[in-house]
């Protein structure tokens, strides 16, 4: 007797299961659930493009409408991954174009995307709606023009911090006059000027536009004209905020800003002049997200400024504060730990923070933890490596202990400053929901790594640079690595021999040694520059450049396991 639910019933039930984690769990229950789930999954997320082959993904999910992929390791953002390492989008685009022509959404992060990829997308997916490229590179504005001109139903076109071969602002004029479907557009990372009239017309005919992120070359004097045409915006990234405006222009701009009744997120603000800050006050009460990355004006973004933020932005959920150029060179700064303490006191909904600061104290961290136990993402970058608590000269162990003890929902953490193994013992013991951890210039010994790998149950991504440990902890906790997406270690004390051993012991991990100047002979005891380890069911990748070593390349080991699948 067939005790299973009919497919139609299961299908209906699964339609309520949204998150990919839940769907992954569902698919492990039994064969029929696996089959039903895979036939109904619409949104596919692949956190590491080398963990699985494009062909397998295309075949497994016949109804997929949305694909999200991530390529290079996170530290590639800071120039720690040499060019040419990998993360090519092409094999994925090609596989999907051939098998899944109803794909509507593609989101790529840290991948190499060429104009050919973009042209292929434009040509292959008839109902294509969403393209989001984050920290990608390899394409030019020609590729963007192809998307704009060909994808009739385009809703989202977002280029977030990409490195684009910018051939000019013409791409914007390629949106056909008939296209009215745009919901979000982000070209903040491009340099060239777009034609104002093209932009105005696009805004005028896009009643559904919710998110507009301009680039720096859009000057302040034209902002009013743009905002007038899009008062329904929920997210705004302004262009440059530094032109001199006359009183009449200021009045018009103030009015236009106050008309943005739905605005929740504000960014851009390049070169924000202090005298223009009051213009933004009308927006503050509703803001849930404030990104001051480019508003690097010493006069504004100091503790005083953050106190103002704390007072005005009661709905704030996310805050990012970057250093101004001066912070990087001088010790006299007016942005200190006090700024973050103020914001943590004043903004009850704050859950995500990225904060750069020259120095910090344990007391401040303890206050912050007490004020805001609801942090989900806490990234503190004390820019001075090994900087202790500047009042007590103690390591910042106790401060971070307070953070992980109190913030029970912490998912992502970046630590900095002077830290001993104790800090990592605390993290291992308390940070049970932590998924991603970034560490630099910290710890004393192997114990540090051991605490993390044996303690943090939910750990999925660990990235470490310039820390003094190596082989023992790595090899002892090898099994843990299969439960994680990836581990990155650079400038640590990992030996080549340990890499070989790990590769042999764990066939379902790809162990990559990335060494720009590999020595001619590599004794087992020699330290490696960078190691990137990730779990995979796709086997060794076939597109490794010369400077990436994997065990499959090494004749020394005597086992050649490289096979073409």
């Amino acid at each position: 007797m067939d005790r299973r639910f009919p497919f139609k019933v299961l299908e209906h039930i699964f339609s309520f299961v949204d998150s990919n984690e839940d769907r992954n769990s569902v698919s492990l229950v039994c064969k029929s659930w696996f089959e039903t789930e895979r036939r109904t999954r619409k949104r596919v997320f692949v956190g590491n493009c080398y963990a699985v082959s494009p062909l397998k993904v295309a075949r497994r999910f016949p109804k997929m409408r949305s694909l999200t992929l991530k390529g290079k390791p996170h530290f590639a953002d800071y120039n720690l991954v040499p060019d040419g390492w990998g993360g090519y989008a092409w094999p994925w685009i090609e596989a999907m174009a051939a098998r899944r022509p109803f794909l509507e959404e593609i989101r790529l992060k840290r991948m190499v995307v060429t104009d050919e990829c973009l042209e292929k997308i434009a040509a292959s997916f008839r109902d294509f709606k969403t393209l989001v490229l984050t920290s990608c590179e390899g394409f030019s504005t020609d590729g963007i023009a192809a998307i704009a001109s060909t994808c009739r139903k385009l809703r989202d076109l977002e280029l977030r911090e990409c490195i684009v071969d910018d051939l000019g602002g013409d791409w914007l004029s390629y949106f056909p006059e008939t296209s009215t479907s745009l919901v979000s557009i982000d070209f903040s990372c491009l340099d060239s000027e777009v034609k104002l009239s093209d932009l105005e017309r696009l805004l005028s005919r896009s009643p559904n536009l919710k998110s507009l992120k301009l680039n720096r070359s859009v000057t302040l004097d034209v902002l009013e004209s743009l905002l007038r045409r899009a008062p329904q915006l929920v997210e705004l990234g302004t262009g440059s905020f530094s032109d001199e405006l006359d009183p009449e222009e200021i009045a018009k701009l103030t009015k236009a800003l106050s008309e943005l009744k739905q605005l929740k997120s504000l960014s851009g603000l390049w070169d924000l002049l202090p005298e223009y800050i009051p213009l933004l006050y009308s927006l503050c009460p509703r803001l849930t997200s404030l990104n001051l990355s480019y508003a690097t004006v010493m006069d504004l973004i100091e503790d005083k400024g953050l106190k103002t933020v704390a007072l005005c932005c009661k709905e704030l959920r996310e805050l990012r504060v970057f250093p101004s150029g001066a912070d990087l060179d001088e010790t006299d700064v007016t942005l200190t730990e006090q700024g973050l303490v103020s914001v943590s006191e004043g903004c009850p909904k704050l859950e995500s923070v990225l904060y750069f600061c020259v120095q910090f104290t344990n007391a401040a961290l303890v206050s912050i933890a007490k004020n805001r136990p609801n942090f989900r993402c806490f990234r503190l970058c004390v820019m001075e490596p090994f900087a202790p608590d500047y009042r007590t000269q103690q390591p910042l162990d106790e401060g971070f202990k307070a953070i992980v003890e109190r913030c029970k929902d912490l998912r992502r953490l970046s630590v900095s400053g002077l830290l001993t193994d104790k800090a990592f013992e605390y993290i291992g013991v308390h940070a049970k929901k932590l998924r991603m951890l970034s560490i630099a210039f910290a710890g004393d010994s192997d114990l540090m790594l051991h605490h993390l790998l044996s303690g943090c149950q939910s750990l999925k991504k660990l990235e470490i640079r310039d820390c003094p440990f190596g082989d023992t902890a790595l090899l002892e906790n090898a099994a843990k690595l299969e439960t994680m997406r990836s581990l990155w270690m650079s400038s640590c004390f990992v030996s080549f021999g340990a890499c070989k051993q790990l590769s042999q012991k764990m066939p379902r991990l790809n162990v990559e040694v990335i060494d720009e100047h590999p020595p001619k002979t590599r004794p087992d005891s020699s330290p490696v520059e960078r190691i990137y380890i990730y779990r995979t069911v796709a086997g060794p990748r076939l597109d490794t450049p010369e400077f990436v070593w994997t065990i499959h390349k090494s004749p020394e080991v005597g086992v050649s396991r490289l096979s073409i699948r």
Partner: protein
Amino acid sequence: MISELEMGKAESELELGLGLSLGGGTAAKIGKPGGGGAWGERGRLLTAKDFPSVGSKRAADSASHAGASPPRSSQVVGWPPIGSHRMNSLAAKSAREEEEAGKKKVKDDEPKDVNKKVQVGFIKVNMDGVAIGRKVDLNAHSSYENLAQTLEDMFFRGNPGTIGLTGQFTKPLRLLDGSSEFVLTYEDKEGDWMLVGDVPWRMFITSVKRLRVMKTSEANGLAARHQESNERQRK
């Protein structure tokens, strides 16, 4: 001359941070945050000794220190962890501020538009015969000689007779004087490939899109160094 053996020896001194002269020599090329010129630096583990204690006045900024002073936090590759977009933005901003403060001297023969804000940062460099492209931060350089030095270190490091360990670069520059196997070329904003060195530096950095270290034998199609340079400068 850096032999394999010496590199290995420096490695073993990692934990004491004593390899300062080696570290200093390589760190000397990192002038600005992001350290675009520091590719290939061996994984030298920096310890607390390498950084002056917080609160003390730091040593005067000097990108070409001979290696005796420890590297500053802004001179370590990829630290502080700020993405290249923001680095470019910060570098361009400080370049503008310096201009406004009148610190930069403007040469008489430079056209006026050079005073506009300079929005360059990391650009790609490829070399014939080398599969891996690099990136170099133009803002960290002040002259062609500077740039050529960085590029030579990037691509020729490890060859006998190239750079000294202590950061004293006494050998003649090969990329700019046409005497070696390679020449330095660049693609400008109009898509033309030209030999580097013909226009004033400030003009160069506003018009360069990317660089290529080309075999001299292949560079014949480009305008020769001393011909037509007048024409180009009139642009």
